[in-house]
């Protein structure tokens, strides 16, 4: 991988509609390598839909995605994962019938190299991989202070803890681009700080490019290097946090109304 200075991700003229209703119209922006890019905007602005396009859950009506120099109209979800795009979901999409550890290990699936027969007979390679996966998953759980829940059924945990498991699952396979859909939602202030710190650290230490959706403007302005503001599927503003904070359009459309106090 060459350390080119070009954008890690480029969204080019992307449009998406559901049953004739426009969710995203002609959206373009760039995400530079190793930056944290925050997508903000009111509900229904098309933020989650955009993330779904980025890793192949939805196919845009038009436009394309450029990821690490390669052009895509649609990437299959599995292809996206293979290319190093990790994803955390808005409403926890954890595997409720599995333990925390197994949920995180599932994030390593694309690295699995053992065959069915090797697993059925527990041949050395299968056992070795299982051990390696376990170790790696525990390492990531430690990062979130979750080791004690490793064997717990994930569906029984409080929401905030589940959110962390979800991020752990998204980064366990060492993605190069991490998409997070409201990773801080439903958390208390201390938890928010904790997770924001982890995201910042991942970004710094692992050279991880992050695109995240978040409603807490206070945290966004501190955490993000780059903010894209969406409203009704259109780009309202795009730039470093300082310029966003002062952008009159944004204040009028978004910050001004519901979140004025957060920005102040």
């Amino acid at each position, binding site marked *: 991988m060459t350390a080119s200075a070009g954008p890690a991700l480029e969204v080019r003229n992307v449009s998406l509609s559901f049953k004739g209703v426009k969710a995203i119209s002609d959206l373009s922006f760039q995400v530079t390598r190793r930056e944290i890019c925050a997508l903000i905007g009111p509900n229904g602005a098309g933020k989650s839909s955009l993330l779904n396009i980025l890793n192949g859950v939805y196919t845009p009506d038009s436009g394309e995605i450029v990821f690490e120099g390669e052009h895509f109209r649609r990437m299959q979800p599995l292809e996206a994962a293979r290319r190093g795009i990790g994803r955390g979901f808005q409403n926890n999409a954890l595997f409720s019938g599995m333990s925390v550890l197994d949920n995180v290990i599932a994030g390593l699936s694309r690295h699995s190299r053992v065959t069915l027969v090797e697993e*059925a007979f527990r041949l050395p390679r299968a056992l070795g991989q299982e051990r390696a996966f376990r170790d790696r998953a525990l390492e990531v759980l430690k990062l979130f202070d979750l080791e004690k829940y490793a064997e717990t059924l994930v569906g029984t945990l409080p929401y905030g803890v589940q959110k962390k498991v979800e991020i752990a699952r998204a980064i366990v396979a060492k993605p190069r681009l991490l998409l997070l859909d409201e990773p801080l939602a439903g958390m208390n202030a201390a938890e928010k700080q904790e997770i924001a710190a982890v995201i910042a650290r991942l970004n710094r230490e692992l050279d991880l490019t992050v695109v995240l959706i978040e409603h807490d403007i206070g945290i966004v302005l501190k955490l993000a290097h780059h903010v894209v503001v969406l409203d009704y599927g259109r780009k309202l503003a795009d730039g470093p946090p300082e310029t966003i904070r002062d952008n009159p359009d944004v204040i009028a459309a978004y910050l001004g109304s519901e979140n004025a106090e957060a920005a102040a």
Partner: protein
Amino acid sequence: MSEINLPAAAEPIDQVGLKVLTIVATLALLVTAPFLASEYWINAIIVPFLILSLAGLGLNLLTGYGGQLSLGAGAFMMVGAYATFSLQLRVPELPLPLALIVAGFIAGAVGLAFGIPSTRIKGFYLIVSTLAAQFFFEWLFLKFPWFYNGNSSATIALSRGLSFFGLDANSPHGRYYLTLGIVALLTLLSFNLIRGQTGRNWMAIRDMDTAAAVIGVPVFRAKLQAFAVSSFILGIAGALWAFAYLGSASVQSFGLTRSYQILFIIIIGGLGTIRGAYLGAGFVSLLPLALDWLFQHLFSGHVDAGLLQNIQKAIFGLLIIWFLIKEPEGLARLLSLRRTQGARRRLFPS
């Protein structure tokens, strides 16, 4: 971080040792069982119970673990039985155990083919594909005499009987040990799959298939694997059902009713648990006996067989509904020592 005392997950690693011990003890009991039970019990209850458990296990891998609903268990059993018959008839050099394995692979390949639509369609829509298998094979194996060697009754039976590497397995004890050995081996292999990467992939797809694909679970491959492995096991179960239990079988032995029976076994026993298949099969095998006994004593004499069958049917239906509402994990959870702990798993979340 708040300290909350939370329940342990389904299969903690440190309990595996204990589990192995239990399995060994159970096996010891199973090995001595023929000397404790009458020939009638071995022939009419224990052997079919074991085979139904195996079939339940096969379906549970696909439906309980993989989340892919199938109403075609009977079809894949049928393929296994007819393949074994053909192999024993036309490739007599092949010893029975190998013929069973080859038949399992044939059933697995067929299952894989009928599983291909699962990559396009989800949830209960998939029953179309599995029902197609059910009806197609009922037609195929009845329509073309080649499959039953032109036999006038359109049934299949092994002319050389059962043997296991030179050991005669035709006696009740022989059939019991043959069945037990195969069931135990396949259970062990399934257990290994379930606690490894394959099982994780299956459960991830069952619990949330879109998310599974996005985080890198190879959904397409894992679904097909589930179909193939499930059908492999069902195929061998079908062969055992035909030749170790019935002796001679026909298409009717593996009809839609059989498919439902296998599905009911895992719903009652416990979807997504290995022991559920055994508990469910035990229940399904014993309930008719219990009802029969009850009616004999209650009405001290003759009860119309048709009525008894209908009562049984209604009771099964009620139990299915009750389990789905109250205990989706079935008897496996009801009988579990850990049942007081924690919330239930939600199988097949919408």
